[in-house]
């Protein structure tokens, strides 16, 4: 029976011993076994054959253990110009003695904070991988930003991954931003090995009244990384959440990003760039749930795909019957640079209220040859002209990064990739 083979891949893995959070783990395990791994027949994973990929590439799965890291390795990985607190993770485990600038930061490992409401925001029944993580996560982190606290500098979540074949890395992060709190997170992963590995990550974020949360993410792992992440945020009244996701590499990456707008005048923003080459596959599934009146969501994802890469964008906007006066905007634009690159893009709007402003649009095209010739005819080198045009296309997403030095860092990364450094 197919359900058997689906579960088989993680069956032994789930028998490993995990400490603490027994109730949450039981719930995760039961839900995972009930859902099974998604196949191409699952609507939500129609274009992303992650299960097949995992089955082909990995076997004898076991939880990844943390590995030793030196202070040098950590300092080398810090983006230039960065000066905020740094939390260091090794295969998903928080390594406290390597963390930097954390004197005023209120955080603990999950085993120190057993009352963490695991799964209260990222519900296990929504996604099999979220359920799998809930059954198997280890030493993640709980971060609390107290009421009215404004964390001036961004907090860097620096994850180092190095796995043996078959290792499963299951990071778990819980962020609790109190009322009127303001905070910026930068999530950055570094791949230290070349063995294929699987990262299955869950981040739960609670935004209190009038809180301001920014969550920036660079996905630039090795070509051998499989990653599924579930990030889910609950926003209370007058709060604002902005995420920017920059995807540059990976074998297969699936990002589930969900925002629940639970209080009026809350605002959720989701921005992303994916620059893909080789055979990289990146799938962004976003979900905004407008449950109350007078909330706003904005979404802009831009993709540039070369070689045989593949991109998937699925943007769901759900406006409930009570959510009158909703403003929801969504846009996805893509440029395909080769005949073999593929994009599957799908806006998905479900609107039950009758007094709302919603718009969505997606475009897929090629590089404008006429514009390219125009630049060349002015003496600009072809490769650079191409980069200039591509950056002009994708660069606007980066404007949503408020922190200047990090925006510059990302701009450099993107321009380097596009060959448009000038």
């Amino acid at each position, binding site marked *: 029976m197919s359900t058997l083979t689906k579960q088989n891949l993680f069956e032994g893995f789930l028998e490993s011993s995990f400490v603490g959070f027994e109730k949450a783990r039981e719930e995760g395990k039961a839900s995972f076994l009930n859902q099974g791994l998604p196949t191409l027949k699952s609507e939500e994973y129609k274009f992303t054959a992650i299960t097949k990929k995992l089955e082909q590439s990995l076997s004898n799965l076991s939880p990844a253990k943390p590995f030793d890291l030196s202070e040098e390795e950590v300092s080398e990985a810090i983006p230039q110009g960065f000066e905020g607190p740094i939390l260091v993770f090794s295969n998903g485990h928080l390594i406290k003695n390597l963390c930097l600038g954390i004197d005023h930061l209120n955080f603990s490992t999950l085993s120190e904070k057993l009352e963490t409401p695991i799964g209260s925001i990222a519900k296990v029944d929504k996604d099999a991988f979220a359920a799998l993580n809930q059954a198997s996560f280890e030493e993640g982190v709980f971060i609390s930003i107290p009421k009215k606290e404004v964390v001036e500098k961004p907090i860097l979540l620096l994850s180092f991954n190095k796995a043996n074949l078959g290792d499963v890395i299951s990071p778990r992060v819980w962020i609790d931003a109190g009322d009127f709190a303001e905070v910026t997170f930068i999530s950055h992963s570094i791949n230290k090995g070349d063995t294929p590995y699987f990262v299955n990550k869950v981040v739960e974020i609670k935004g209190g009244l009038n809180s301001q949360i920014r969550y920036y993410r660079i996905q630039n792992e090795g070509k051998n990384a499989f990653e599924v992440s579930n990030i889910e945020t609950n926003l209370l009244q007058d709060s604002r959440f902005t995420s920017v996701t920059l995807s540059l590499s990976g074998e297969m990456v699936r990002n589930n990003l969900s925002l629940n707008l639970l209080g009026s005048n809350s605002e959720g923003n989701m921005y992303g760039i994916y620059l893909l080459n080789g055979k990289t596959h990146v799938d962004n599934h976003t979900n905004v749930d407008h449950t109350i009146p007078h909330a706003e969501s904005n979404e802009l994802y831009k993709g540039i795909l070369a070689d045989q890469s593949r991109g998937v964008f699925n943007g769901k906007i759900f406006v409930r019957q009570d959510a009158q006066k909703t403003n929801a905007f969504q846009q996805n634009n893509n440029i395909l640079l080769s005949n073999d690159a593929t994009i599957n893009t799908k806006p998905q709007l479900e609107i039950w209220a009758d007094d709302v402003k919603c718009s969505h649009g997606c475009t897929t095209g090629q590089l404008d*040859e006429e514009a390219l010739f125009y630049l060349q005819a002015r003496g*600009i080198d072809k490769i650079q002209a191409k980069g200039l045009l591509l950056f002009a296309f994708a660069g606007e997403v980066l404007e949503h990064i408020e922190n200047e030095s990090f925006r510059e860092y990302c701009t450099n990364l993107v321009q380097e990739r596009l060959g448009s450094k*000038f």
Partner: protein
Amino acid sequence: MLSIKNLHASIEGTPILRGINLEVKAGEVHAIMGPNGSGKSTLASVLAGREEYEVTEGEVFFKGKDLLELAPEDRAREGVFLAFQYPVEIPGVSSTNFLRTAVNQVREYRGLEALDAVKFLTMMKEKMKLVEIDQKLLSRSLNEGFSGGEKKRNEIFQMAMLEPTLSILDETDSGLDIDALRIVSNGVNQLKSKDNATIVVTHYQRLLDYIVPDFVHVLYKGRIVKSGTKDLALELEEKGYDWIKEAIDSEATV
């Protein structure tokens, strides 16, 4: 400076140019006129290196170099400038950034030092006067939302910045009102020197009242069928192209 011999070019297998011969020397202004579809813009495009056109026969030498062997950017760096008939709008690319990249790449190729921000701005200010272009326009994305006249002025402004030795103006006058035409022509005339040359491609004689050519060539069915002085342009203005067409077509049938 420019020597075109028996140039044949086609697009998607359809021959457009069927044996062009043209010699342009430094200090000269040549006008290329002709009815619609005669191949005027094709000639301009082939010289600038547009890829859609395939050169099937003939040769083009520019300052002793085989022009057809060069990539479009290298032609520009060697000193060929094409003012586009339809300048392209490029959202997200600032005019100033674009121009600075272009100017410095051209300078590097010519063995000159790159201009720093201050020197570049000084040069820009000076050249802006030439075509009466507004600073505000240049802080916007390249050509985006520019009016027809603004686009054409921007072309001449770019020409001034890049200091070409051979400028090809492709229907730069089309669609311009008399004020814009005067400004554009004035810019071109001020840039003229004994060391550079200009090819003016136009459908109308009107432009030639402002930019006075040394030679006028009539292009028809992909060949230069008649050459003369500026008087030829006046004759064309008066009589239209039909008499030339008839003469050539009857020759062909004989």
